[in-house]
Each structure stands twice: as C-alpha cells, then as structure tokens.
C-alpha cells in the first residue's frame, strides 16, 4: 500500500501542472505530450513549494504540504479550462505494440530491481529520507561533516520530488523511486512523439532509452528525470514553432535539468551555445536560459556561502593530456553500450539518409557539445578509467537523447520545425 501511495504521488504531478495547458501550442499537442508537459510543470511546482517552505523556515508537515498542493492543483485545473482530452494524433498500431513490449520489459527490469542505480541507495534516497525526517532542507544536515559523501552541494530537485512521494505515503518507498524511472522515460517518449508527430521516432526513443537505462543501471538515479527535462528543452526548441511556448517550455526544461544534476548545468550551456550558433537569436536564447541561470545561481550562492562540498569547479582542475588516449578508448568502450555502439549508429544512419539532414543541426550540435563536455571533464583525472566505466553510460544518455531527437528532426520537413 505504501508503495502504491508513493507511486501515486508521481501520477499526480500532471494534475498539479495542468496550468501550462494554457499555452496554445501545448493545447495542440496530443494527450501524451500534454500530460508529459504538465508533469514537468507539476514537478517544478512541487519542488518550488517545498524549497520555498524551507527558505522561509516553515517546517514541512503532511497537512500543510497537501493543503498547499490541493489549492495549487485546483487553481491549475481551473486556469487550464476547457481541458482538451481528445487524442489528436492516433498512434500507429505497430508502434503502439512496440511501445507496449518495451514498457513491459522495462517495468519487469525495474520491479525486480536489476536496473537500480547504487546512487539511489547511496545519496538520492538517503537525502530525501533525511529531509523528510527533518521537516525541510536544513543547513545542519547539509553542513554536517558526516554527510559530505552524500554530495550536499548537488542540486535538490530529485530529493525533493522523492520527499513529495514520501509525504503522500508517509514513508520512503524505494520501489516507487525505481519505478518512477518508467514515468520519466515514457514521458520523454511522449514528448518526442507529440512534438515530432512521428511514431517511429517515438519507438526509437523508447527502445534506445530503455536499453541504455538498463545497461547504465540508471533507475532511481538523477538521469531519468534529467533526460526527461532535457528532452522537453530539446523538443521545444526543435519542433515547437510558437515563440512563446518555445521559450516557456525550453526554459522550464533547462531550469529543471540544471536543478536535477550537475550535468544539467553543462547541458544548459550546450543549449545556449547551440541556439546562438544555429539560430543566432540572442534575446530568445537569453530568455530561455535565464530561469536556469537564476535558480542555479541562487543554489550555488547558498552552497558557497555555507562552504558546502560541491563539484562545480571541476573544469578548473588541471588537465592531464597524457590521459587523453586512454580516456578516449575507455569512453568509446562505455559508449558502445555493450552493443557495438548500435544506439548511436542507428540515429546517425537515419540522419545520413534523411531527406532533410540540415534540420538535425540544433539537436545534433547539442549532442556533440554534451559528448565533448563529458570527455573534457574526464581528462581532469590522471587515470579516469574507473570513473568513466562507473558513470559514462549514464552521463552519455544526454548526447544519446539529443542524437535520437536529431534523427527525428532530420525526417521532418522544415515547415514542421520551430
């Protein structure tokens, strides 16, 4: 029962974020896409509420949090009226069958815990457990020397989402945390299908991510929500033509990605560079990046003010050029995903044979930049072999996702893109 309640908390996120359906472009998406976008908005709202209570030193309680959330949910649904519920883009039967098969395999893997990430048990989960027990994010916990190994300077979005789930269930549910991976993964798939209007691209996204998540043992870690928010940002700037919706959705995706993992900040920088190079729209790029810069800047100022342990200054460490060859070879091994690199080869081939390969430029550049950033950070250790093998399959999920979206863009006509 506890696990069911805890999982229900994630299912409530789209209801909390329904207000984002006020955007006409979101309203025009199919149901899956609208639910996924509302889920992202709901996650941001929940995290903002929990963080705001801690900032003003109001202790969390179940009654208080639920009262606030119910009011927000009611207001959100009211503002989003009339709620569009009609499916605008019926899915191809073969694609639907493929997605169901992938979902069954993924959920089986998640439920028998074989896809679980150690980091869930090492710090994502324990941090949420402590925050919930403490009734908020407390400096006493973050600054405790005993918690330095739990990455106190990491951004807080995921532990706060887990706190939300724990608030509903009154107890932390490890299985619901692991199972939320499926929601984030298929949320990403729904975003791609809904914005690209391409069922085959959705199947490729689902197959690639489900397989890569399994090889990377990513369940319950920061990567599933990170990839979800990154997907939202990439599809918004790639497929959504309406400027206002594009800015709002991309800004939402970037801000949430930046507050999910350190790699989210790297991703935000890559998106900014890609937009400036490919689109040459300075003002819109700044609008998209501003919320991420603000929330991450505020968090880093807090971390620095209280001298918490963090890893954001890794780029300032010495570079070991002697390690370049070994880093490249080890990174290539990790990037092969135990399948001869097929997850990369398929989208690359699809781009090469596509009718409009130039349409892939923006997400392709994001893929190249984030892959390059991973390599850049790895050469800051004299022997990064263990680090690469332990983390690269998860870190490379970002460029892999961007590449798959690039392959979908290459098969759309220019009129279908943003």
């Amino acid at each position, binding site marked *: 029962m506890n696990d069911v309640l805890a999982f229900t908390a994630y299912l409530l996120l789209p209801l909390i974020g329904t207000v984002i359906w006020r955007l006409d472009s979101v309203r025009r998406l199919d149901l899956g896409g609208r639910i996924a976008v509302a889920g992202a908005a709901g996650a941001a709202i929940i995290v903002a509420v929990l963080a705001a209570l801690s900032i003003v030193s109001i202790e969390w309680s179940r009654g208080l949090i639920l009262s606030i959330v119910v009011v927000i949910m009611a207001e959100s649904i009211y503002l989003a009226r009339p709620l569009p519920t009609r499916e605008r883009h019926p899915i191809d039967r073969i694609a639907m069958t493929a997605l169901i098969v992938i979902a069954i395999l993924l959920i089986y893997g998640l439920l028998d815990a074989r896809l679980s990430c*150690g980091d869930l*048990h*090492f*710090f994502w*989960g*324990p941090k949420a*457990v*402590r925050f*919930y*027990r403490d009734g908020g994010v407390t400096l006493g916990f973050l600054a405790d020397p*005993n918690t330095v*190994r*739990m990455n106190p300077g990491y951004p807080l979005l995921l532990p706060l989402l887990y706190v939300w789930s724990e608030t509903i269930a009154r107890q*932390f549910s*490890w299985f619901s945390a692991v199972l939320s991976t499926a929601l984030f993964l298929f949320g990403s798939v729904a975003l791609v299908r809904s914005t690209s209007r391409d069922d085959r691209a959705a199947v490729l996204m689902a197959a690639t991510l489900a397989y890569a998540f399994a090889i990377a043992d990513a369940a319950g870690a920061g990567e599933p929500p990170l990839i979800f928010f990154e997907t939202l940002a990439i599809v918004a700037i790639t497929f959504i033509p309406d400027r206002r919706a594009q800015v709002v959705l991309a800004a939402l995706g970037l801000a949430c990605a930046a507050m999910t993992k350190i790699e989210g900040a790297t991703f935000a920088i890559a998106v900014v560079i890609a937009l400036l190079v490919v689109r040459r729209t300075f003002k819109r790029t700044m609008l998209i990046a501003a919320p991420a810069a603000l929330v991450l800047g505020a968090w880093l100022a807090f971390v620095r003010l209280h001298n918490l342990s963090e890893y954001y200054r890794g780029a300032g460490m010495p570079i070991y050029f002697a390690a370049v060859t070994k880093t490249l070879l080890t990174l290539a091994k990790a990037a092969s995903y135990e399948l001869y690199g097929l997850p990369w080869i398929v989208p690359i081939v699809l781009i090469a044979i596509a009718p409009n390969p130039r349409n892939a430029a923006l997400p392709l550049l994001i893929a190249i930049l984030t892959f390059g950033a991973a390599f850049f950070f790895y050469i800051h250790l004299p022997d990064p072999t263990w680090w690469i093998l332990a983390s690269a399959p998860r870190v490379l999920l970002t460029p892999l996702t961007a590449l798959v979206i690039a392959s979908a863009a290459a098969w759309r006509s220019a009129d279908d893109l943003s």
Partner: protein
Amino acid sequence: MYPSRDMILLSRAAAEIVPRGATVTAIRPAEAPDYDITLYLTAGGMMPRHRVVPPALDAADRPQFVLAVREPLSNPHYRLFRELPEGRIYEAIP
C-alpha cells in the same frame, strides 16, 4: 552478490532492533581500515530514526552500534549485540 544487498537487508532489520537515536555505522569488516563508504550511506537511507555516521571505529566518539555484513567484527571496543541472517550487530563497550 554485492555486500550492499546484504546491507540493505541488515540495516532494515537493524532499524527495528537498535535503539532509536543511537549512532550507527555499517561496514564489511574484511575491508578494514579502508571501509567501503557506500555501505554506511546505504544504511543511512534504511535507518531514518538513527544517526548513521562514517565508520570511525577507533575514534573517541565512535558509533554506538556497528552493522557488519559478511565477516564477524573483531574490535576490542565492540561486542556482539545481535546476530541476524544478513550479518551481525555490534555495540560499543562502555
């Protein structure tokens, strides 16, 4: 099987046995003195009503209880408190 798996089971059981509020750490004794930190981090998530700390068994403010997976712990500061299928719980000798 990874020792983390044993630690998940042991710390869940220990959460009901060790007095609430006590300081606890978690180790695999054979790894002394370079204990795998992930074991006590794992226990930290399973024992929310306890204060789970790093494994400084010989420090002056040593933890009151030690969860040990796999091998038995041999340390003059600790004595066996409870034996479970997944491992052993030791308490500090006053």
